[in-house]
């Protein structure tokens, strides 16, 4: 389909700058993008019928990495 309507995973690498130009960079647009990304992660890994520790552990591992990045100067 047209470039502006495709999701990020369907865009080919060469078309990436063009796709970035079409998306909404305002505060509301970014917030909507973050919300969509979070809800797709949540629905795929956490909100499943027989969920286990895996979905939340990935989230916690990402949180640890983020904290490491924030602490990098101080170590």
């Amino acid at each position: 389909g047209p470039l502006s309507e495709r999701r990020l995973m369907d865009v080919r690498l060469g078309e990436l700058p063009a796709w970035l130009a079409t998306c909404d960079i305002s505060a509301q647009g970014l917030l909507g993008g973050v919300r969509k990304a979070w809800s797709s992660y949540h629905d795929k890994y956490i909100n499943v019928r027989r969920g286990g520790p895996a979905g939340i552990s990935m989230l916690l591992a990402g949180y640890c990495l983020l904290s490491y990045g924030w602490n990098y100067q101080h170590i």
Partner: protein
Amino acid sequence: MNLSFFDQFASPSLMGIPLIIIATMFPTLLLIPQDNRWINNRLSTIQSWLLHMITKQLMIPLNKKGHKWSLILMSLMTLLLTINLLGLLPYTFTPTTQLSMNMALAFPLWMATLLTGLRNQPSISLGHLLPEGTPTPLIPALILIETTSLLIRPLALGVRLTANLTAGHLLIQLISTATVALLPIMPTVSILTSLILLLLTILEIAVAMIQAYVFVLLLSLYLQENI
């Protein structure tokens, strides 16, 4: 050397955003929103079962008017529990080690219970300052003592939480430094120290949960006296 051990309690900031803001907002991502299905998925069921168990335990002693407080007390409990437990992961920052945050949580809530009691039932609330059956000569001294103990409650609530968590984190850092430093010199002692570290980590997990519970329990007790 000692000064560097306290550096872990300073909130590091990257590009002007201090980590404490992210650390305080992150627990919201871990809580699964409840949709009113008949049978939820496994994680959602576990979470709502835990929440119901804790709510029943805390809210049964309160009367009907006290049950209006259940939302704020349960959300406070969940916040403290998640913040305390997340602080045990490596490199993370625990906002509840900051006295400012704990006092900001303890003082308004304690004040709310006090003012509710003084407004709705002033004589009963003041009556709590004198336990039943005290001998008459002791009454002035006892009222002074009880007033002091009443006014020190928010300070005690805040400092209890701060001190427990700070002490735990400091101990973990000290013992792990000792283990790593001893490893090339005396491996046996290093293994013993790492056993102590294991036991300490289990203790810290318990302390994290208990401290959150005690905070909210004491608030509900203060509420019971006053509502």
